């Protein structure tokens, strides 16, 4: 998670100031408004999900692109959030592949935006990490088919 923290800072200039320990995700995820998910597969399968409120997501993409983003419906904003997840998940998969030779490859990321969204992934055990930034909370949720030991 330290590398995720560093990557977020490098890409968006936003610091994670507090981070929880990994905790088992029980039931569905209540989205804060902007959710991006990316699946990966190789010797095992899973998905990486990042969820945050629109204000934080807009600030992150604005900082990353150098362009002011003021709508979560803007095409470049959606592409920016997807790319951010792609880079973070790519980095995590690189570490796993180098350490355990899992041959993991990423699928293209998906972005959802909206109020009162519920995200459910059947048949996958997940853990989440809640983090705080100066602009709002961010939740990272990782699931592997077959489960993860917390």
């Amino acid at each position, binding site marked *: 998670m330290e590398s995720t923290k560093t990557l977020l800072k490098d890409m968006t200039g936003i610091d994670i100031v507090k981070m929880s320990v990994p905790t088992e995700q029980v039931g569905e995820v209540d989205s804060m408004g902007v959710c991006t998910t990316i699946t990966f597969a190789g010797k095992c399968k899973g998905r990486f999900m990042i969820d945050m409120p629109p204000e934080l997501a807009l600030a992150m993409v604005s900082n990353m692109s150098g362009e002011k983003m003021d709508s979560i419906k803007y095409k470049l904003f959606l592409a920016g959030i997807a790319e951010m997840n*792609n880079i973070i998940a790519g980095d995590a998969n690189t570490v796993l592949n*180098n350490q355990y030779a899992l041959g993991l490859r990423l699928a293209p990321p998906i972005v959802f935006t909206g109020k009162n969204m519920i995200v459910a992934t059947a048949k996958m055990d997940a853990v989440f990490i809640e983090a705080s930034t100066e602009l709002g909370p961010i939740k990272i949720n990782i699931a592997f088919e077959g489960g993860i030991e917390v």
Partner: protein
Amino acid sequence: MSKRVLIVDDSPMIHNMLRKTLEGNGYEVCADASNGREGVHLYEKLQPDIVFMDITMPIMDGIEAVKCIKDKYKEAKIIMLTAMGDEEIMSQAEEAGVDIFLKKPFNDFKIISAIANIV
């Protein structure tokens, strides 16, 4: 005359960010492609000096696209710019003929230094 660059990546955000970096440093972006097949086609048509190529893309991935370009144009200068950087994928990229491998995220210095190393 400024060097001409082709960007092959499925993310409009990467097109946008790379274009700013390249044009801000005196390079001309001659085209953007959003998948490997389109990248190969545009390479043949435009013969750019440098190509920035992603790996994970729909229709044709970056490794396959590099093979297609290098098979016909050995002198092509290709910089792979991707989120994945494990040993296996780096070795596949090297075998395909990639000149420089860069891992995202990137900044101006990383991009301009890579170009300086191959042209």
